[in-house]
């Protein structure tokens, strides 16, 4: 069964002459365990698509189904709770809470859910991320790559249905970018984590099993890579 199904998803901005169709009747589905890259030129509608999949932006029309549940009909708060239990989101900017340490940032979704901390799991994630030494550091005391690793950790903490990453390497140098992508790939291969990676960088897209290319809000290519 598909873990993510996108059906006829459309997003329009503005009215009349100023109308922009950012996402234009896009449909596709993602199976559990897939590593999908979504690429396309800047302004092609990637972020808009991702925000709708993540439930932080409402589509003009169409449906998003995650793990069999249609998220388009959920209220803002239902979405928030859904997100913290089922999705992991990573952005270009690190999106960490500046006053919380690395470890505290990672367990944020748990805490929001009122769940107890599971030290084993946190330790495991920190070591996977290579951040065991940095657990007690504040975001301001870490490099860009380290900060981004913390947000990956936060995305992973709940064993989400899939991780949505929007240009997670957009702000990093190529070596650090490589490390981040390797980390994502590792979680995909070793932990079976489903990943949707958005990037305009074709080289990075090549790390994925499947590449969906978007142009002007439509899918112009959808290819599965041979390994």
């Amino acid at each position, binding site marked *: 069964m598909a873990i993510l199904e996108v059906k006829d998803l459309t997003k329009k901005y503005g009215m009349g002459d100023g109308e922009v169709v950012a996402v234009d009747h896009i449909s596709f589905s993602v199976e559990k365990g897939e590593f999908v890259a979504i690429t396309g030129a800047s302004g092609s509608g990637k972020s808009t698509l991702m925000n709708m999949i993540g439930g*932080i932006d409402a589509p003009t029309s169409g449906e998003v189904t995650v793990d069999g549940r249609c998220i388009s009909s959920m209220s803002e708060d239902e979405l928030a709770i859904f997100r913290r239990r089922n999705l992991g989101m990573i952005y270009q900017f690190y*999106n960490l809470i500046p006053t919380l340490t690395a470890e505290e940032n990672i367990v944020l979704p748990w805490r929001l859910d009122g769940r107890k901390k599971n030290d084993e799991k946190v330790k495991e994630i920190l070591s996977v991320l290579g951040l065991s030494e940095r657990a007690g550091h504040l975001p301001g005391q870490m490099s860009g790559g380290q900060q981004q690793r913390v947000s990956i950790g936060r995305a992973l903490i709940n064993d989400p249905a899939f991780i949505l990453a929007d240009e997670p390497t957009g702000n990093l140098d190529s070596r650090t970018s490589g490390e981040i992508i390797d980390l994502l790939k590792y979680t995909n291969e070793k932990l079976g984590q489903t990943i949707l990676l958005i990037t305009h960088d074709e080289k990075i897209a090549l790390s994925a099993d499947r590449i969906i290319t978007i142009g002007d809000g439509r899918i112009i290519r959808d290819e599965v890579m041979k390994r």
Partner: protein
Amino acid sequence: MRLTAELALDQIRGNRKRSAGAIMATALSAALLTAVMCFASSGYRMLENFLGPGLGEYAGAYLILLVIPSVFLGLLIVFMSITVISNIYESSTVKRLGEFGVLKCVGATGRQIRETVIFESLWISIIAVPLGLIAGTVIGFIGVEIAGRYIAYFNELSKSIVMRPVSFELGFHVTPATYVFSAVFSMLVVLASAAKPAARSGKITAIECIKGIHLNLIKNVKVKENPVIEKLFGYEGTLGSANISRNRIAYRSTVRALALSIMLIMLAGSFKNQAHNAMNWMSSMGNAMLVDYASIMDEGVNEQTGKDESVIVKPISYDTAQEITEKLRAYKEDLDIIGVGSDRVTYRSIADDSIMSSEFLTHSGIMDEHGEIKTELLTADEKTYVMLCGMAGVPVGSNILINYYVYNDNGRIKELEPFTGDVKEIELIDSSNVEKKLSIDGILYKDQLPSNGFESLAPDPVRIIVPSGNMRGFTWYSDPADDASFTQYARSVMDEYYPILTEDSYVEQGYTVRISRADQMIKVMNIAIILGEIVLSGLIIMLMFMGFASVISTLSANIRIRQREFAVLKSVGMTNRALEKMVFSESAICSIKGCLGGIIWGIVLPYAINLSVRKVFPVRYELPALSLLFGVLTVLGLVILITRVEIGKMRGQNIVEDIRENLC
């Protein structure tokens, strides 16, 4: 601990500067409320003495004069505190929008976001409210001590007038309730202040936060180029004015704080004016030396008629009054002395449109519910009475009507002649409904009355001079060269007839004898106004400090919060000079907006207060021009100073650092 509480605590720890500001403002507000509560509990006991027998006649006036401004002021403290404190939380949440966005993305509900803001305010209160209670006790103590000194001074003064220790004194006094109320009110203020920013933060959607920090607060309104601003401040001014109209929320707090400060300065000016004018009016009766006898009255209700009835307990007989007059006159050869007796409580006149003008009868408050008019019977010492008869052209033994009524018409002193043509007779009625016809033999008009004794601040509408009779009180007016020796002499004369027997209570004795210059007596009677003015001014000054603090914090936060924007402007080649010009013109435009709002409220509020004051005192609202000028200059100076300081800090900063710092 709940996560939301923990996040709030981290936030407070992580932003020490802002937290310190929030703690100070909250503590100041709590201190102010505590100080007011200290005054309230200390003043409570004294108030009863204030409104005791000696002030009976003016009790209503004092109540109106004190209660209405106090309620206004209480609301003002609360409003001011909420404005200042909510400004702080508002700017704190604007800064935290990015953080809220992250929280929303990882699945925080609107409720959880609201909770962190509320928890932030609760954490702050835990430190600030106890601090405020302590500081407020200190402020309250100092304030009560100062007020207490004033009261002690007036006690001395009134003791010298009535020759009897005055029993009321203001001492610092608090009860547990003082603190419970202060703490509860402070907490309510804090919660009310955090509520709106909390609600706003809860409503922010994740997408808004992701797309840009506080972009959602920026409205894309059409900005017309304003030629005046362009001329005054150049292109940078136009840029600044666009910033202000697109980012209203950030500037609204500054504008509001500015307006409040100006309003308070004008309010203080107006209070001073009105109190001053009320005092002037009270001393408009001249400054003669007064020897005054007054009996206390037994107030009750007539059983048969149900009308209010006042019995004069120790009336002064005509003969006694004449004897005292002669003795006082003997103080020095030909001492000019006028003695006037008065009884305002025994009779009322029945309204009669054949002798009273319609203007008089239709005047509101002239007639009571029985169609009767307050009436004063007057007697004078023999010499004066003979003179008055001569003036009216009637033989000695006549009743003379005073055809002259002065009253306070909503803040203006008005005069009118109540009677038309020749009045031959007036029908009087007492509380047991016994009617009595009094023949009127002559009429005196305003200009014919002697300056002392026949003028009164609040005279009865009908006044009749009769040849003799027992009176409630008798007052002798003179102007001796040596006050001290005359006072001593007069006291010895009065002691023969009306000795001061008991030290403590003239209720037991049934009368009071006061000897003093009129202005001293008025001072004692107006102690409430003077004290009220001191307390109000003190409070307003403290509130003004809060206003200034708020202007400083919001304005500098506004400039600091936009460092990233400034960095971007710099990176596209805006010079430091141009940037400074832009910031300056923004501050200038804010000040103009704040001043306009403040001036409007600074006029409306005291005017509204005056509407109640003018019912009692002939005092009308005047524009406090000096305060206005002072307020505008102070506020402008403050704004220029803060902007300068913030710009100075900005100069040393590095663009790259700014951009980096604001990203995580």
